[in-house]
């Protein structure tokens, strides 16, 4: 597809998602509470969007990923929370 065709198809959808991201970050900033590893990972992933290259989706996924390679001794929850927690003791168990 030509660039204009891509924009014709996806620009408004992407614009709406970008606006949602801005509103989400505003919401987080208005809220009180301690630091959270998920927000740190989110900001790291967000920074990937302003970098060059045609593999931004991949780099966003890598920013959230567990970088370790060994199996864990035992799980503390069945669910994933979306971001790797470098200090698992801070993890809030998910349903």
């Amino acid at each position, binding site marked *: *597809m030509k660039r204009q065709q891509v924009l014709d198809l996806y620009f408004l959808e992407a614009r709406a998602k970008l606006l949602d991201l801005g509103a989400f970050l505003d919401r987080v900033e208005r809220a009180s509470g301690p630091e959270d590893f998920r927000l740190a990972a989110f900001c790291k992933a967000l920074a990937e969007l302003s970098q060059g290259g045609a*593999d931004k989706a991949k780099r966003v996924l890598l920013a959230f*990923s567990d970088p370790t390679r060994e199996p864990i001794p035992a*799980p503390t929850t069945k669910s994933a929370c979306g971001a790797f927690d470098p200090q698992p003791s801070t993890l809030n168990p998910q349903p």
Partner: protein
Amino acid sequence: MRYIEPHAHMVSRVTDDYRAMLASGCAAVCEPAFWAGFDRSSADGFYDYFCQLTEHEPKRAARFGLPHFCWLCINPKEAEDVTLAEEVLALIPKFLDRPTVLGIGEIGLNKNSRNELKVLEMHVDLAARHNQLILVHTPHLEDKLKGTLLIIDALKNDRRINPGRVIIDHVEEHTVEHVLNAGFWAGMTLYPESKCTSARAIDIVETYGNERLWMNSACDWGVSVPLAVPYTALEMRKRGHGAAAIDKLILQNPLRFLSQSAKFLLRVES
């Protein structure tokens, strides 16, 4: 448009979904064994589930003229209890000769634990001993990359396993290359909130090609869309993909992989 839904948990869906799938061109549906949303209390629960997958569900689908196939296993979410897993694995050979059983799946990892990996290796051994196809689930979100690499290692470590007879499902942009480069098939799961959206799945096809790739809805009891495959086909058409390219991805590719099981007897109208 005709398509194969190669991964759908129809026991969690209503009958109207069967009708909608058929009306959208579905030619066959394949159902891997899955987590019920709660842990089953004993191997007996799995026995009943395997009967449901091999007896009741094919009959329900047949009411709409839709061929229904299945895969059997204890899923990774219940694989932490190795003793339970051993009991469930002992049940599976009794079901493998049933006419709609395609292989072992969806096995894999959930939280990438040692016990999950042990149970994965037990399943791989079972598949190898019975010459079965394998369908693999990869973990969610932050656990996916690590889990996918552990799974590839486990499969490669068993010399009896032919990668061309294994599909590794739920790939995304950071795992698809690992899977394809290791010679396996790759599945893209179309979910509204996680895994792949339609647009990203088509991006992956445009980036990595359409060989050894399929798309599925993996519709289950959670947020999912049973018609995600035909909806994605429509989006491919909007992006200028021709009828032959769409047909290859949603019909011919799954047909090619699944026909490695002699049971996948499907008459696809030309």
